[in-house]
């Protein structure tokens, strides 16, 4: 039952059964009404010409379709069907030319009607034999069948020519408009051949799906009916005769239209396949391009752009968005105007989006799934999206985001397209995974470097602390041991050295603590309007006493507004810079302190004519414990922290500090900037 139902679903089988039923009905009606229609009608020579002309045309067309384009004759069935129709066409032509009164009165090739009847039966015989052979041999490889088929076709044509040549010796197959018994037997044999051929062809079609045999089976069914004119004893030019001749056209047309429709289908399949191949090629090319980028420099931005671009173009999405989760922040890569691709943070990503992006989930596709898509993702697909494809961006069990494609219209997805979207998402995930690995490696490296620097700093601090401690301990123990034998001045000198070293140690500790506070989150400064000219006076009064060999020249622009700053800290900066200027110009000379306005800022400059700074060290002198090391500077005491502290204080004020020097022995200049009071009021407070 199941196999019958399956067979019934086949369009050719249905056509076959419908044709059989129609012909049977026609036969019943014909037999019942036979007595009424059995009179000969008027002779209509054009009807013969039309029928035979059309069948000639259809036959040649069928032959061409079978043997010509697409080399369908590589199939055995097409070979035999084609040859049968070709030979049949030639015989039809001979038949037309020998029909008395059709082309010429009394016939063109012959004036013997019996010859035309012979040719008529011969052409049907050729067709019946050819179609039967097609069904019988279609399972075998073509091979030598070509030779056999061409030979058989040629033999049939030769037989036709022979019939014309030896017409006088031929037996009578027709007499006074009716078949003789010889003609009848021949007709019966043909009807039988068509029945067998039809059944075999249909069976073969069902077995092998050779549609050509399927249509041939239907055509042969029609041919059986045509041969049945013998059964009803029809005679020339009666109703039956006209009906059966008309059915000839129907039979040919069934085969012709069937073939043509198959050809159209074939063409469409070819075109679809070519389109499919083109898409597959474009997709693999896109994946190759991305994979190359992933494997190469690992530029995540470029990979994201390519993934979105190719998803958008090759999957024909109206909206293509790559949602990526980075450090709890969702980024959306999407196509902007003029086909540029940009990333923008998803404003306050909802917990739902983060959950969706953070957890691996299956792909979502289709209209129903689009309706079921969680609201945030639907919004990403587009408010008016009727169809969406959401593919997780997953690598190594970690989800990095989702690729969301939105479509304004319903659209079926081929399995290949789905696979392509997943491959794109996979590449994006791979790139993000690599980026994360790189980031983690860089962080680990930075942590190691920070540890190393901390160790180095500790060693330096320890060294710097031990030096004044060494002086204190050494001098104290020497005094204790040899004090009684030491001259009084020397004892005094030793005590003073201890005192100085203690101050040095204490200053060092103060500075270290100050820098520690800077590191721990910024130097606390108390901002207020500071009058720089007053501050400069104070500092000069303090430093002036130490500057016996120097001439300090201070120039403060009287029109300067007060600056926004911490008076105590700024005093520290000025003192440090002036101290340095005095210390590092051991031969004396002028020290200039200039305060003036410049480009909206207040610029403070401290210049000396001292030892100077080698140009390659200008950038390092603000680092902790960095000291310019030379023959002349080594005798000068310093903690190596003063400039680092100046730098921290100026930066905390939002200013800038830098040094200039024409080189060793040619003096140095230190500059720093501060913002005027009014300016600060309109701006945000410094961090």
């Amino acid at each position: 039952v199941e196999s019958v139902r399956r067979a019934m679903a086949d369009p050719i089988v249905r056509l076959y059964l419908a044709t059989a039923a129609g012909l049977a009905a026609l036969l019943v009606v014909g037999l019942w009404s036979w007595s009424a229609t059995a009179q000969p009608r008027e002779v209509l020579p054009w009807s013969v010409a039309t029928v035979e002309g059309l069948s000639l045309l259809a036959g040649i067309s069928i032959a061409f379709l079978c043997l010509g384009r697409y080399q369908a004759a590589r199939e055995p069935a097409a070979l035999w069907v084609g040859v049968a129709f070709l030979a049949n066409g030639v015989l039809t032509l001979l038949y037309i030319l020998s029909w008395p009164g059709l082309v010429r009165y009394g016939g063109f090739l012959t004036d013997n009607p019996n010859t035309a009847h012979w040719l008529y039966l011969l052409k049907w015989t050729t067709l019946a034999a050819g179609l039967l052979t097609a069904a019988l041999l279609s399972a075998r490889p073509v091979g030598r069948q070509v030779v056999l088929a061409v030979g058989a076709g040629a033999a049939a044509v030769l037989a036709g020519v022979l019939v014309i040549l030896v017409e006088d010796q031929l037996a009578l197959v027709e007499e006074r408009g009716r078949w003789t018994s010889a003609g009848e037997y021949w007709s019966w044999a043909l009807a039988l051949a068509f029945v067998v051929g039809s059944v075999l062809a249909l069976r073969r079609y069902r077995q092998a799906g050779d549609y050509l045999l399927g249509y041939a089976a239907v055509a042969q069914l029609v041919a059986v009916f045509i041969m049945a004119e013998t059964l009803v004893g029809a005679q020339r030019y009666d109703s039956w005769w006209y009906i059966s001749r008309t059915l000839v056209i129907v039979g040919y047309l069934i085969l012709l239209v069937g073939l043509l429709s198959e050809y159209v289908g074939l063409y469409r399949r070819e075109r679809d396949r070519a389109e499919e191949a083109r898409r597959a090629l474009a997709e693999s090319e896109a994946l190759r391009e991305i994979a190359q980028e992933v494997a190469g420099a690992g530029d995540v931005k470029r990979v994201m752009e390519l993934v979105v671009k190719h998803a958008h173009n090759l999957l024909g999405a109206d909206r293509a968005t790559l949602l990526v989760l980075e450090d709890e922040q969702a980024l959306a890569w999407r196509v902007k105007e003029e086909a540029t691709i940009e990333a923008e943070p998803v404003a306050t990503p909802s917990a739902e989006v983060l959950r969706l992006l953070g957890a691996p989930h299956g792909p979502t596709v289709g209209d129903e799934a689009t309706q079921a898509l969680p609201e945030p993702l639907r919004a990403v697909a587009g408010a008016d999206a009727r169809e969406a494809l959401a593919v997780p961006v997953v690598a190594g069990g970690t989800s990095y985001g989702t690729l969301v494609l939105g479509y304004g219209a319903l659209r079926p997805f081929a399995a290949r397209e789905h696979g392509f979207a997943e491959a794109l998402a996979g590449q994006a995930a791979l790139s993000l995974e690599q980026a994360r690995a790189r980031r983690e490696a860089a962080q680990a490296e930075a942590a190691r470097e920070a540890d190393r620097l901390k160790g180095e700093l500790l060693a330096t601090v320890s060294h710097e602390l031990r030096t004044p401690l060494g002086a204190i301990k050494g001098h104290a123990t020497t005094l204790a041991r040899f004090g009684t034998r030491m001259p009084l001045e020397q004892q005094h000198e030793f005590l003073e050295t201890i005192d100085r070293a203690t101050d040095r140690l204490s200053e060092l500790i103060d500075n270290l603590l100050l820098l520690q506070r800077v590191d721990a989150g910024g130097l606390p400064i108390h901002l207020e309007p500071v009058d720089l000219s007053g501050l400069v006076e104070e500092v000069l009064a303090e430093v002036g006493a130490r500057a016996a060999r120097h001439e300090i020249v201070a120039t403060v622009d009287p029109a300067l507004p007060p600056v926004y700053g911490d008076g105590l800290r700024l005093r520290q900066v000025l003192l440090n810079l002036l101290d340095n200027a005095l210390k590092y110009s051991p031969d004396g000379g002028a020290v200039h302190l200039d305060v003036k306005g410049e480009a909206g800022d207040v610029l403070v400059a401290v210049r000396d004519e001292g030892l100077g700074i080698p140009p390659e060290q200008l950038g390092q002198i603000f680092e902790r414990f960095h000291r310019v090391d030379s023959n002349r500077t080594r005798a000068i005491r310093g903690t190596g922290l003063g400039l680092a502290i100046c730098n921290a204080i100026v930066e905390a004020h939002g200013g800038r500090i830098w040094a200039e020097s024409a080189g060793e022995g040619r003096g140095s200049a230190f500059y720093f900037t501060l913002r005027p009071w009014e300016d600060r009021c309109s701006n945000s407070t410094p961090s």
Partner: protein
Amino acid sequence: MQQQHTVLIVEDDTDLLRFAEVALGMDGYAVQVATDGEQAMAMVRARRPDLVVLDLRLPLADGWQVLSFLQSDAVQPTVPVVVLTATAGPRERDRALAAGVADYLVKPVSADKLLDAVARALGISRPHDH
């Protein structure tokens, strides 16, 4: 009176140099001073001391360079070395001891400790207090 030994102190910090100079002088040594590595090597070449008190962080040529100079063939017989440094790291200590220094003192160091180390390095009994 015992034979007077000559001690070269190589130290760039003037305070420390001063204390070592006075302490060793008081203890009966003839004291020479150098404030950088090159000066130290020049002085060893000119007049060989019996012992060198050596800082490691020095301008021009550092203590390690001076040390390898003192142990090269240019200086025969070898002059004993007492390192006096603010560098407390075990790596530097091991390196110096492996290079054959007589003692490795880390600042701060008392006058007694310095004098003991110098006397031990010279293989003499401590001179008595005067």
